[in-house]
């Protein structure tokens, strides 16, 4: 009898910890979230907004952030294990489309209408970023604009008072800076994506948004004359020595640091660079500013490029009410939106946020986007992920040896065509 008791006790001792380890320690009032707003991408500010939500509601947020680069695979691992959190951040565009097509997201149309978000979110952003397959799935937490961010002191030393609006003017500026011994352009393409803005703007400003959309959806090819021309223009800048050498050795913060230190004059980057620069003590307007990417061909609409960071609810959400309350709060509360976008160096899609909340540079970015004819998602958010991998590798290979651009484009055309079939 005593042996039987011991056996049961031992069995319990073995089984109980397993059960405890596998049981989720989540209460009914918890909302689980995962996001990529870590480090210089706004962790502190995001935490502050989450605290405001917890103070204003009965829900508790269980937060598990993942670094920006690791998030891209980390969220897939969680999806593959069917353990997605209630809410996660994601990039609007092709990536959300991919997840929607996979049936992994919870539609939010009812919540959107109930909360009156049509009156809160800018229509241009709502139309382009929130609707997929006829339903709403994403609330835009913020958006960014990519422009030519420069060191004001370097430009002042070069005697630059007016910034180029045309391609010839841009080439003159680069030549002037190079003549002064300053590398005109910093690029940190170690993680590949920072190079994509060059491709985006060169293609949009030579071939136009319609052609670019065709390339992104697979109805145009990477060895078309339009793409060849854009890449040749890019190669001419590298050949002229306007870019830092070995761009693939730097990441985006290295490139930003080169501009901040005055080793390079400018970098084509998203507005998140302002959050990074503010964090290391630079002053908007005094130490840095930006100008829009110059127009190239006449008669094309003015395009701006950038990502929209959004929040989505997974289809296996445990706490629907909490998840919907959280994402609605994060987008609709003007105080939260102002605090978050200022902290992260982003623009708000909430029309009730007063532009005066932004610093001078961000006000200018806001006005630039408002005045543009066309807002385009940047390359890796505009084309399906398997194709984006082909293009991102192509940009890094191109930056290593632009003289091989013809060969690189031919390879990319074949690989992209195959990726579209998958």
């Amino acid at each position, binding site marked *: 009898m005593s042996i039987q008791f011991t056996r049961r006790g031992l069995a319990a001792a073995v089984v109980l910890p*397993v059960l405890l380890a596998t049981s989720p320690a989540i209460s009914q009032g918890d909302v689980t979230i995962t996001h990529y707003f870590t480090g210089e991408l706004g962790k502190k500010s995001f935490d502050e907004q989450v605290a405001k939500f917890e103070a204003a509601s009965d829900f508790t947020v269980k937060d598990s952030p993942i670094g920006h680069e690791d998030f891209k695979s980390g969220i897939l691992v969680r*999806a*593959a294990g069917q353990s997605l959190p209630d809410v996660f951040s994601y990039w609007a565009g092709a990536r959300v489309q991919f997840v929607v097509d996979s049936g*992994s997201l919870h539609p939010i149309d009812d919540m959107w209408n109930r909360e009156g978000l049509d009156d809160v979110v800018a229509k241009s952003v709502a139309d382009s970023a929130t609707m997929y397959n006829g339903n709403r799935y994403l609330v835009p937490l913020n958006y960014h604009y990519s422009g030519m961010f420069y060191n004001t002191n370097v430009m002042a030393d070069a005697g630059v008072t007016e910034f180029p609006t045309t391609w010839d003017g841009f080439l003159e500026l680069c030549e002037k800076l190079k003549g002064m011994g300053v590398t005109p352009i910093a690029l940190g393409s170690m993680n590949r994506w920072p190079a994509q803005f060059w491709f985006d703007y060169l293609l949009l400003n030579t071939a136009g948004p319609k052609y670019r959309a065709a390339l992104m959806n697979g109805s145009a090819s990477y060895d078309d004359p339009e793409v060849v021309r854009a890449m040749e223009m890019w190669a001419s800048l590298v050949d002229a020595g306007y870019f830092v050498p070995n761009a693939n*050795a730097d990441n985006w913060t290295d490139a930003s640091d080169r501009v901040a230190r005055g080793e390079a004059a400018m970098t084509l980057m998203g507005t998140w660079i302002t959050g990074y620069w503010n964090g290391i003590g630079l002053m908007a307007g005094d130490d840095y500013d930006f100008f829009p990417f110059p127009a190239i061909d006449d008669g094309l609409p003015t395009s701006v490029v950038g990502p929209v960071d959004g929040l989505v609810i997974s289809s296996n959400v445990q706490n629907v009410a909490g998840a919907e309350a959280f994402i609605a709060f994060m987008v609709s509360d003007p105080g939260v939106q102002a605090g978050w976008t200022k902290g992260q160096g982003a623009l708000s899609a909430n029309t009730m946020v007063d532009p005066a909340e932004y610093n001078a540079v961000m006000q200018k970015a806001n006005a630039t986007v408002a005045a543009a004819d066309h807002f385009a998602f940047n390359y890796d958010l505009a084309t399906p992920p398997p194709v984006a991998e082909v293009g991102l590798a192509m940009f*890094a*290979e191109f930056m290593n040896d632009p003289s091989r651009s013809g060969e690189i484009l031919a390879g990319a055309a074949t690989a992209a065509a195959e990726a579209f079939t998958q």
Partner: protein
Amino acid sequence: MERENRFWRIVLLALPLAVFAVLVVWPLFSSFYYSFTNWNGFDSRYEFVGFRNFAKIYTDKLFLNAAINTAIWMVAAILLPTLLGLGLALLIDSRIPGGTIFKSVFYLPICLSAVVVGQIWVWIYQQDWGLLNTVIWTVTGERPAIAWLAKPETALGSVIVAWSWQQTGLSMVIYLAGLVSIQEELLEVCEIEGASAWQRIRLVIIPLLTPATIVVIALSVINSLKGFDILFIMTGGGPFHSSDTLAMHMYNESFRKYLMGYGSAISVVLFLIALTIIRIYFRQLRKLDEIHG
């Protein structure tokens, strides 16, 4: 009594076996299963595609590139730490001044995780202020702009050097333990008989170190097959696939391109390659065991 002992054995083994089954056996069989599907990792819906993923491997240029890199990686990751470890062990065993300190210094890297080692070497290779370029600058007087990890010509080799730096300490310690078991008298007799130092090493010491060499190579094979983390940290397979190994290619296809079915097929091939290498190795090991008793 025997029955009770049996019960305890089963109970005590149950938990580790359950953990092993969940964390190793189940994912292994899952990979086999998904390699016959077009699953993208997100979608609960997928189709069986037969051997299509395996057929794709034959036409995938990136797979061929990764297979060649894996072969280079394995040969270098086995040879370099083994030879360097043997050389260091012979030096330290010759009772050079400060031998104990050198032993600790060379062994230290093996105590660090591959992630830490990878990050240290990313800093060493940094093109502007990294240790390597600074040393070259000091020696040559000219500032080099060599981006060791950003150039396809140097990326894989640079990671192999970092890997060897970490693994050499382990080989060295195993060889030192082997050297202790060689009798001093034997080497003294060789010396009296007129054998040179090189002849003593080549004809006496190295053959007597065969058991240690077997252990060193076994560990090197196993560790090199697992060598994903340091590559991931240092180059991520880049620039543009120049340092992709099969494990890295599998990761890229599965988690960056969302082709989980094809990635699983690559992992199955990698598993079969590893199994073949391990089988060949153990067969040779058995033969050596028979020779050396």
